[in-house]
């Protein structure tokens, strides 16, 4: 039985079409995934089902949920459906909950609204138990919970009244890989137990492959392909789906590593953070973020660093850059401690966010030459260096006079790489450098990095939570857990035969795509 049917849905905002002729359906007990890259309109599709489109949006067509045509209903009727017949889970559990209200009150509120016959508090407790938060008291505030626990609370709010349809918009994008696996399993279990339809919005094809019965692929506000999961993923009909799949499983070819003398040497490094005193005269307590970490990066080495949030990888990265004091051990580059200012110019970083890492008021030529400040005197051939740096990353020398807002996200990440490489650093640190990018752009940037390896024999440390990326772009991997390196071996060995149980947990938790069938 069809629960949700979207038929020829068109949405415009201020005359600009956002969705064009979108049709899809979800049956009771079925998991349907809507996937696509940013700007494809997948979130807007979800919001049209909730009828929570931004102000000024105009929708035409029909959205039929459980016999109601949502586009024809008035606001009070819609309010009785939202949270009751259809529940929604959002992407960012950190901000999706009201910070000044207890989690119990937030779950009970939905119940009080739609089910006045029930004892809201008792029922809220039962719902929290259902999302496996047995040990969490209702009086907790959101900031006292972890990201995964908060997402469970958001799910509890959405399913509290037993909706027929659950919409999950990128429900695990902000979570660690092991937490992601738990939340996905929870969503699947709840949908199966209640016979709920689940409409999942996600950019991650591997998640889609694991979760969905059927898939709808969108691009630029239009549906390009839909079908049952297995055939669609192994033998896609549309070129765009094919390209998307290829980009998701993109492999780069790294040149042979020239194993050389160690460049960076991290030797039994310890980083403690002082915790606030609980008593006036008690000895100060510490949190050990990095706990006796040792490893070498040889010249020309491409090393990956993986681990979940809070494992200490950011602290370690900052220590390597000389930005954090260490309590014990030493970090040296070419034998000189990294805290020495002269060493700074030998290391450069590329950050995750291609939007936040540039001053919007400066031109490209100024932005990418920022590291020249580190040199004793500015190079005489400044213009040539800018032209070369831009050409190296696949941009044109003419781009030097533009401002950052004139570039797309992927192009900005190219600029960030140009900025890092312009002074020919000996070590580059990629800190989640491709995590914020769409898969097709990510594939291009990975190719770019591989190409630069060939050209300049780069040495880098590649930090990422995405195991599939680390697998292709590094030749050795460090796995970090609770401040310690638990595994440090060649990449392929780590992935095919992990020795540490934690590494195995990580690899098992990461969803994977089925192999694409060869096209004849």
């Amino acid at each position: 039985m069809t629960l949700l049917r979207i038929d020829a849905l068109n949405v415009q905002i201020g005359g600009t079409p956002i969705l064009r002729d979108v049709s899809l359906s979800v049956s009771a007990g079925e998991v349907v995934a809507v996937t696509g890259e940013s700007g494809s309109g997948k979130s807007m599709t979800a919001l049209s089902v909730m009828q929570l489109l931004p102000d000024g949006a105009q929708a035409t067509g029909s959205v039929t949920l459980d016999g109601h045509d949502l586009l024809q209903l008035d606001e009070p009727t819609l309010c009785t459906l939202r949270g009751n017949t259809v529940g929604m889970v959002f992407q960012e559990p950190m901000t999706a909950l009201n910070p000044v209200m207890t989690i119990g009150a937030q779950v009970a509120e939905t119940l009080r609204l739609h089910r006045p016959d029930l004892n809201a508090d008792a029922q809220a407790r039962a719902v929290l138990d259902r999302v496996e938060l047995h040990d969490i008291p209702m009086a907790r505030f959101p900031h006292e919970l972890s990201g995964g626990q908060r997402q469970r609370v958001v799910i509890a709010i959405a399913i509290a009244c037993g909706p027929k349809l659950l919409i999950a918009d990128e429900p695990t994008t902000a979570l660690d890989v092991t937490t992601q696996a738990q939340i996905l399993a929870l969503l699947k279990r709840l949908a199966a137990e209640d016979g709920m339809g689940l409409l999942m919005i996600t950019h991650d094809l591997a998640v889609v492959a694991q979760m969905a019965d059927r898939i709808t692929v969108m691009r630029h506000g239009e549906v390009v392909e839909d079908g049952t999961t297995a055939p669609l993923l192994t033998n896609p009909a549309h070129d765009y789906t094919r390209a998307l799949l290829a980009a998701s499983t993109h492999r780069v070819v790294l040149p042979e590593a020239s194993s050389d003398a160690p460049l960076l040497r991290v030797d039994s490094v310890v980083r403690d953070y002082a915790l606030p005193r609980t008593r006036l005269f008690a000895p100060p307590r510490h949190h050990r973020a990095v706990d006796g970490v040792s490893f070498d990066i040889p010249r020309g080495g491409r090393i990956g660093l993986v681990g979940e949030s809070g494992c200490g990888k950011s602290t370690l990265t900052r220590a390597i850059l000389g930005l954090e004091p260490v309590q014990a051990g030493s970090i040296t580059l070419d034998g000189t401690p990294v805290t020495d200012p002269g060493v700074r110019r030998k290391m450069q970083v590329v950050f995750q966010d291609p939007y936040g890492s540039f001053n919007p008021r400066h031109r490209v030529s100024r932005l990418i030459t920022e590291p020249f400040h580190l040199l004793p005197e500015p190079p005489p051939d400044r213009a040539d260096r800018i032209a070369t740096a831009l050409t190296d990353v696949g941009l044109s020398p003419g781009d030097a006079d533009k401002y950052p807002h004139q570039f797309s996200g992927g192009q900005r990440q190219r600029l960030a790489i140009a900025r890092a490489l312009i002074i020919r650093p000996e070590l580059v640190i990629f800190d989640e450098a491709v995590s914020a990018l769409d898969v097709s752009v990510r594939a291009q940037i990975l190719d770019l990095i591989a190409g630069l390896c060939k050209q300049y024999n780069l040495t880098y440390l590649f930090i990422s939570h995405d195991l599939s990326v680390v697998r292709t772009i590094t030749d050795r991997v460090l796995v970090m857990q609770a401040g310690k390196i638990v595994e440090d071996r060649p990449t392929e060995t780590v992935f095919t035969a992990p020795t540490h149980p934690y590494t195995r947990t990580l690899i098992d938790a990461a969803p994977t795509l089925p192999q694409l069938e060869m096209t004849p």
Partner: protein
Amino acid sequence: MLRYALKRLTSLLISLAIASLVIFAVIEVAPGDPASFMLGVNAQEDTLAALRAELGLDQSKVQRYLAWVSGMVQGDFGTSYQYRTPVSDMIAQRLWVSLPLALYALALSTLIAFPAGIYAASRRGKAGDVGVMGATQIGIAIPNFWFAMMLVLVFAINLRWFSAGGFAGWDKGVFAALKSLTLPAIALALPQAAILARVMRSSLLDIMGEDFMRTARAKGLTRAQALRRHGLRNALIPVLTILGLQFSFLLAGGIIIEQVFYLPGLGRLIFQSISARDLIVVESVTMLLVFAVIVVNFAVDLAYAAVDPRLRGRT
């Protein structure tokens, strides 16, 4: 929560100690000898010395600071050089005008600003919003002494509803006293209300864009319900900051309005004392105002913690 309150209280006491030292030091270096000011330029040297001894001006600075502080703690602010009456008595009389006036103005400004801000935020970009924001723009731009004079012109001189100035005194009854404070309170409240309404509006608009407001709507709450139950309390945090600042300002900053309405308030007391080199009064009133500002900040800190649970565990 208790730990948080204790920490705030400690920092309050330290601030007070530092403030008293600074005030004492500044008054000490200020030129002018109170004794010669009181006796005039033709005073005999031995008369001056006798008066200095009587006022305690011949003691060492440390002794005088300690005497001043210990006196204040016991409620004894010393004796005015000019009027030869206890300073605590003078302050108490003035405080009975300034404190009610400040509270009155604050209440008025809150009563105007909250609904105006909420209304403007809920009609963002529409005529109502534009109207309210235009009105607040005017409210900020109008000098309050001019507005005070207009109030006198309309309500005291033309309509004869209120008296044009002076304070009836609390012994004439609460109604009469409040009535004589009404026009000054309105004059003080107007610019404050305009600022507060703008802060309320922008704070609410920020909150409306938050993810948890979308969660609230997805639960099935109407726009208004979501705003009331989830938006207001979160929006209150920046508003509280402004409220605290405004109260401190209203307590002493009403000097121009006190002048216009001829009210015997703290602002005028401090102004008269400065012109008369009545240093002990200046010292005491300044200290009292500092005390008020610090106590109000302490209250605002506690209010933050009451509104925002994230602050309670923090130090």
